[in-house]
């Protein structure tokens, strides 16, 4: 092979070029938005509020800071625990629902179950229909996933709040839809990237596409699926808390109420409750992930 036959190598690797392009796009966008460093300087009023709020971080409230507290009102700690419990329940219910939807849509959107050349053989009408229907289902599922993901849970919450009112079901569905979309997308990618040798082998023994998916592809992808699902569980807790800003009885509701009343000690109490919830979920998911990935 002569020197002319040696392919030319780009002095800049493809990855470096992509990274530089992204940085350049970021810089140009900031320029168009007219963002300046001086915008970071706070107003004097804003600075005072921020200081008041931050200074209470070390001294959260253990009793209500409200001027008027009804005699039969539960203690602040009980309110915080109850709100944390509601946050956890809403998050868990939404996660359960989104996991089921994510697995079904992830299956339909992954190409692994239908891209098995020569397996669903036959050149007849049946074979042609099978080969064309499967990609159509896959494409429709991917479109649905994009739709579910592209609308944030807060937008879904506004929609369901208007449609079915302020109840727990609205909160659960509002979170479950975008989470199911994200889970389905990641699940389908993880399943498509999972090793296919076992699946091909089972197809060779007469197993159907769905059997192969459940018995070979899913178990191969399972450790990654579980790890990602647990990561999303931490996110769902934060989303569940944030939905409180719309009036759902989760931690966000109390954070907003206390913040509006400038009871910053109470705000920190609820924030610490949320923090504790996330740390607990993180510790638990870490332990489970360790077992699954072992």
């Amino acid at each position, binding site marked *: 092979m002569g020197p002319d036959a040696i392919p030319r190598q780009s002095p800049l690797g493809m990855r470096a070029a992509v990274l530089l392009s992204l940085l350049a796009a970021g810089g140009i966008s900031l320029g168009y938005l007219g963002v300046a460093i001086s915008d970071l300087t706070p107003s004097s009023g804003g600075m005072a509020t921020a200081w008041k709020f931050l200074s209470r971080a070390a001294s959260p409230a253990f009793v209500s800071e409200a001027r008027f507290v009804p005699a039969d009102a539960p203690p602040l700690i009980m309110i915080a625990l109850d709100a944390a419990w509601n946050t956890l329940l809403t998050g868990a219910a939404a996660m359960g629902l989104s996991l089921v939807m994510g697995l079904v849509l992830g299956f339909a959107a992954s190409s692994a179950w239908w891209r098995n050349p020569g397996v669903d*053989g036959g050149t007849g009408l049946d074979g042609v229909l099978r080969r064309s229907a499967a990609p159509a289902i896959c494409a429709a599922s991917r479109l649905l996933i994009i739709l579910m993901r592209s609308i944030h849970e807060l937008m879904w919450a506004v929609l369901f709040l208007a449609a079915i009112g302020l109840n727990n079901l609205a909160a659960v569905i509002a979170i479950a839809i975008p989470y199911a979309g994200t889970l389905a997308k990641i699940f389908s990618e993880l399943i498509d990237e999972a090793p296919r040798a076992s699946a091909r082998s089972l197809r060779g*023994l007469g197993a159907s596409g769905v059997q192969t998916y*459940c*018995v070979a592809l899913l178990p191969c992808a399972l450790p990654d699926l579980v790890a990602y699902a647990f990561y999303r569980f931490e996110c769902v807790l934060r989303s569940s808390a944030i939905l409180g800003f719309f009036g759902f009885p989760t931690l966000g509701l109390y954070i907003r109420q206390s913040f509006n009343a400038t009871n910053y000690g109470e705000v920190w109490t609820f924030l610490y409750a949320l923090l504790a919830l996330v740390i607990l979920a993180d510790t638990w998911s870490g332990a489970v992930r360790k077992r699954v990935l072992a």
Partner: protein
Amino acid sequence: MTKGADFLLDQVSVQYQNTLALDEVTLSIAPGEAVGLVGPSGSGKSTLLHLFNGRGQPTGGWASVSGKRLIDYGRRDLKQLRSRIGFIDQGLNLVPNLRVSQNVIAGRLGQVGFARSLSMLLFPSRAMLREVHELLERVGIPEKLFERTDRLSGGQQQRVALARALFQKPVALIADEPVSSVDPARARDTIEQLTRISREEGLTLCMSLHNFELAREHLPRLIGLRDGKVVFDRASEEIGDEQFDALYTLEKNEMWRDGA
């Protein structure tokens, strides 16, 4: 389908885009016969084996299994055919993070519906577990019944693959270089098991091998393939070392091609 499938290839060619993997191959394998395929890498052994359970289709000529041409097998017939032919892949290709019992039970997936397949994998009956245990006993690893498959050694995984194939209650066993990744002692042991069990069960056995000694020792008939063509097809004792060496001798252009 009677016990012991028969295979017949008549002028079979298989073309993959620009590569002719099999070139007008004609051969027949009788029910209960044990046959070895030998030949260098890329000679068409795997392509030929894949025809036997319909994983591949001839692009020329015709192939038949158990008296029926592959082209005449409908989708369901093909599924049924595959479910009764135990196929041990070169890389074994077990599901790594399933238990040994589940991998063995997976051998019967082609014979049951979806709901039944999930129930027997997740909640196998005592009778089924006993059947799996007996098979594992037969291949020498009964104590591994509930072990995770990826925690077994290569040799033990080979036995699981054999048990999975036997769990299919097959009419034939096809093995694609089943001993390519184990040491000579284990290779001998595996080939002994494969041939013994096939003989005991009256199964047709066809396997590809690179080890001529093992092939000659355990398989009464050997088929030599090179560049997709049958170079020899005769009784093992009639094949001398020089014929085997000739089969594997690289020509100058092949050395360049393979980077040797």
